[in-house]
């Protein structure tokens, strides 16, 4: 039974057809086209068989999951692309990331009173792992994929890189622009910044630095500390560890 669809084989075939008609100078022989198309379809079929065979491994093992995702991406397959079809129905991969997305939203909502809607990816992962035994092996890679999906659904979710492979997850709609994220990246090591440290390290004008800091305070992302010897410091709860959980 032939499946109509969005698999790699169908896409490749279409592209080849387009290329053929577009560029008359490049004539792709009919049999070459047929061969390539068949190879891709075979590959996809093997991928599906592989996935079925290793369904449990995919659910339970984060590293396996990551490599599987990369394999899929290499042939233009996105297991999370649609709610229907082989991937989500047979494997429940869609379910896995959907459920993870729900848990991400829950944790972000629960911690928002403290951090204003900004949370370190590591902290998010620890909190989710703490919620259930099934979530022990959730990786940062898993979370980033789930967050990407959430973003596509139109929520306010975004993952902001802050250097060293670390991320801040933003869950509130208020857009953080480049200046804001740069300041967050600067603050990430120590958990705080001051106007003078921004000016000296980023070489910005005072007004620009102050604008960003005022915005962070206004959004509830930063608290002020007036007892530091070097002048007012701005601390981010999102960057401040809370071991109590």
């Amino acid at each position, binding site marked *: 039974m032939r499946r109509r669809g969005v698999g790699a084989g169908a896409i490749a075939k279409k592209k080849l057809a387009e290329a053929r008609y577009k560029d008359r100078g490049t004539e792709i022989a009919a049999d070459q086209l047929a061969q390539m198309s068949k190879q891709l379809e075979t590959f996809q079929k093997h991928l599906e068989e592989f996935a079925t065979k290793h369904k449990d491994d995919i659910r339970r093992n984060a590293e396996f999951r990551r490599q599987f995702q990369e394999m899929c991406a290499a042939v233009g397959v996105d297991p999370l692309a649609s709610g229907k079809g082989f991937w989500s129905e047979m494997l429940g991969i869609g379910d896995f990331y959907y459920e993870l997305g729900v848990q991400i939203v829950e944790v972000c909502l629960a911690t928002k*009173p*403290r951090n204003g809607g900004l949370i370190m990816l590591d902290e998010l992962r620890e909190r989710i792992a703490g919620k259930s035994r099934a979530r022990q092996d959730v990786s940062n890679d898993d979370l980033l994929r789930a967050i990407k999906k959430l973003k596509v659904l139109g929520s306010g979710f975004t993952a902001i890189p802050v250097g060293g492979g670390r991320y801040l997850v933003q869950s509130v709609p208020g857009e953080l622009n480049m200046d804001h994220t740069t300041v967050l990246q600067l603050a990430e090591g120590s958990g*705080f910044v001051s106007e003078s440290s921004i000016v000296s390290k980023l070489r910005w004008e005072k007004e620009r630095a102050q604008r960003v800091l005022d915005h962070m*305070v*206004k959004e*509830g992302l930063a*608290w*002020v*500390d*007036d*007892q*530091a010897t070097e002048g007012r*410091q701005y*601390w981010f*709860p999102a960057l*401040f560890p*809370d*071991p*109590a959980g």
Partner: protein
Amino acid sequence: MAEFQWPWQYNFPPFFTIQPNKDTQAKQLEAWCLLVLSYCRHRRQYSLDVTDAQDSPLFHNQKIGRKLPLEAVYTVLEELRKKGNIEWTDPKKRNRCLIMWRTPEEWGKIIYQWVTSNGMNNTVCTTYELVNGDDTSNQEFHGMESWLLTRALQTLQIERKAELMGSEGVKFF
């Protein structure tokens, strides 16, 4: 006494600066109110001297070198007063206040629950043995100061669950 569990805010330097953002400030004050009450409850402390408190670990975290300014201490205590958890013994000077981490009504309920579960209805006991006797050594109201005990028993009296007998005795129904 087990070690007191400080909330995350206690080690967060900005916690000791009153916040300019109103929403953040509201969260901050709420956290301070909670901290003051749980700290006093942990130490079974029924009164607070403002000057002493300012230098105590409650308002002064030596480890991070931050201290809640006196004006802010009064802001926090005023919040607690509005909620009914503290009462100034000298409202004009505000040097000292009484602390009720539980309201007298809540205390009344707890005491009466203990009385009932120990089959002491329709008996008389002294206020001394109630809060200082061996029988109550594991109760939260053990060691309670008499001013608070009196108020707690008065709430029970209104409900006809107890009757104060002079200043040293009480009958439970």
